[in-house]
């Protein structure tokens, strides 16, 4: 099916800023679904609130634009009700891990078969550039005018510790890799998390002097690497720009970090029904 068949054309042009990474994520998402050959009627997409959450309206699936932080809770109700549906939940970093942090870890703990996509642009874009739990120490934001003192989560470590059985990270620079990861995440039976580092030139880029969208994409390319090759000792220029990287001497790894099997929640509930009916 042509990619444009997955979008609701009458709602374009989209409302994201020029250079925003969310359109690239949407592109990767559609490519993944197209490759998997899923019927549009079998896909439910649930989002919360924020720039990223508007992605649902543009896509021709069963779409639900819910409350800030609560997308995974709504999605849990949908998935447990009709487990044959593919449930995909795109969220922003603040949406998923600040206001929605509790639902994120509990969905991971249950290992319910939902694909969570964290579109991480390290900022609250919709409200004008406040720091998020992924902005990181030392970054600038409208609510951190003297530099941010909040430490950030590592989405991969958090998801893995909470019990997600598929955890991956990519960036909007690596769009082919990103689409493949989403594809694998959707195929995975269990709670899957794909963190996609994305750029917000309008707020994060501007406040942190990271240049325009292209500069930010190149920066993401330089500061990330595939799993296992993470030292940046030699890259003096990079050490100079990024104080955090200098301190840790590490690049951010991309790839599939966790892929394991554990009983999936809806399948386990089928067993509950069986036991209840047998009176055991």
């Amino acid at each position, binding site marked *: 099916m042509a990619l444009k068949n997955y979008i609701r054309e009458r709602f374009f042009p989209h409302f994201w800023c020029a250079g925003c990474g969310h359109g690239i994520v949407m592109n990767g998402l559609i490519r993944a679904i197209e490759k998997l050959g899923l019927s549009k009627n079998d896909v*439910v997409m649930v989002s919360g609130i924020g720039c990223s959450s508007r992605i649902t309206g543009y896509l021709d699936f069963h779409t639900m634009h819910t409350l800030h932080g*609560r997308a995974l*809770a709504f999605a849990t109700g949908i998935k447990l009700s009709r487990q044959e549906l593919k449930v995909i939940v795109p969220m922003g970093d603040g949406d998923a891990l600040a206001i929605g942090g509790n*639902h994120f870890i509990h969905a991971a703990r249950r290992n319910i078969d939902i694909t969570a996509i964290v579109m991480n642009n390290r900022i609250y874009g919709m409200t004008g550039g406040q720091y998020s739990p992924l902005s990181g120490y030392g970054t600038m934001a409208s609510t951190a005018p003297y530099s941010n003192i909040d430490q950030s989560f590592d989405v991969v470590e958090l998801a893995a510790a909470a019990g997600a059985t598929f955890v991956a990270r990519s960036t909007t620079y690596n769009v082919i890799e990103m689409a493949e990861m989403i594809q694998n995440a959707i195929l995975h039976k269990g709670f899957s998390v794909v963190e996609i580092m994305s750029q917000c030139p309008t707020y994060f880029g501007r406040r942190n002097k990271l240049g325009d969208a292209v500069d930010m994409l190149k920066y993401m390319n330089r500061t990330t690497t595939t799993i296992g090759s993470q030292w940046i000792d030699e890259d003096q220029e990079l050490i100079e720009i990024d104080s955090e990287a200098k301190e840790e001497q590490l690049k951010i790894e991309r790839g599939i970090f966790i892929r394991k099997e554990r009983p999936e929640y809806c399948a386990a*509930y089928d067993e*509950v029904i069986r036991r209840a009916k047998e009176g055991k």
Partner: protein
Amino acid sequence: MKGIVKFVQGNEACVEGALYAGLDFFAGYPITPSTEIAEHLAFRLPKAGGKFIQMEDEIASMCAIVGASLTGRKVMTATSGPGFSLMQEALGYAIMTEIPCVIVNVQRGGPSTGIPTHVSQGDVNQTRWGTHGDHSIIALTASNNQDVFAMTVEAFNISETYRTPVVLLFDEVVGHMRERLVLPQKGEIPIVERLRTSVKAGVDYHPYLPREDGRLPMSDFGGVHRYNVTGLYHDMWGFPSDDPGVVHGLIRHLVDKIENRTSQLARFKDFYTEDAEFLLISYGSAARSARHIVERRHRRGEKFGLLELMTLWPFPYDLVKQKAAGARYIVVVEMNTGQICQSVRLAVDRPERVFLANRIDGVLINPTDIQRMLHVIGGKGV
């Protein structure tokens, strides 16, 4: 009424009513004094092939039932004060997106953690205005197990008919009191099934375009019609809109579909109200004490009547006005600082006739408490 006779708690009567109405998805979080509802459903639902899930909090519980309802299930959650506070945002979402669901609030004393194991009726106005923004809401209540059962069935029927959340506002005494419950046989009480669209696959379906009778046929998520659902103001396709005409039209629709049906939605019982000089108005467990007084005084030949409200919202102003027309004194019996009393004063001519007999100390108001108030009204001292 023939059927199986049970001796159960009010919370279990609610469970029986919900299952009778076709409940097949429940999400909840433990909280006193509503927990037995979750416990019984955890046991009962899977036996019937339904789904039960204990969520991480009440916010998630409310969200999960709304999601499940959208896939075609009949859904419910149950909670008490603090949990009900947490549910308010998602309750507004269900109102805005017109997704049927039933929320049980077995009231305990508040504010805050309050007095968890004791009775109160303090959430009446929160039920009306708890979620932000202009809206309307339907809230039902009951004073005994048989009515808890019946009102629970009603809640599902009304919720499906009007595509709106319905709150069952019970209280700790009703929830925990054990008494007789006769389970009606199948078919004895009519059940409203969800109205689904007859629009065929491939034909443009408008999820938010009301039919001539005002009803909105639904299409289950996962079915042949793909559409958008949002808590933003939206057009007939469910897409966000800030067009003033769309915004005005939607808020009017959401409010009017309930407020314009106030008399149709009014559920109540009346005892000797025709020529009552003293009209007691009460609801929930407080109405049991009020009824005790009324029966006793009526037997003595005194003109006492009771109007037991079972629909609290939309408040039946016309009904109250009419019932109170001939009464010299109107005494509202409730366990709060006068939340329904306030509405009664708005409803009646000469609101100075309206008195409040209440208790706000976590103890069920008893006939003696009401008697004392009647002494005061009668000029016989405190």
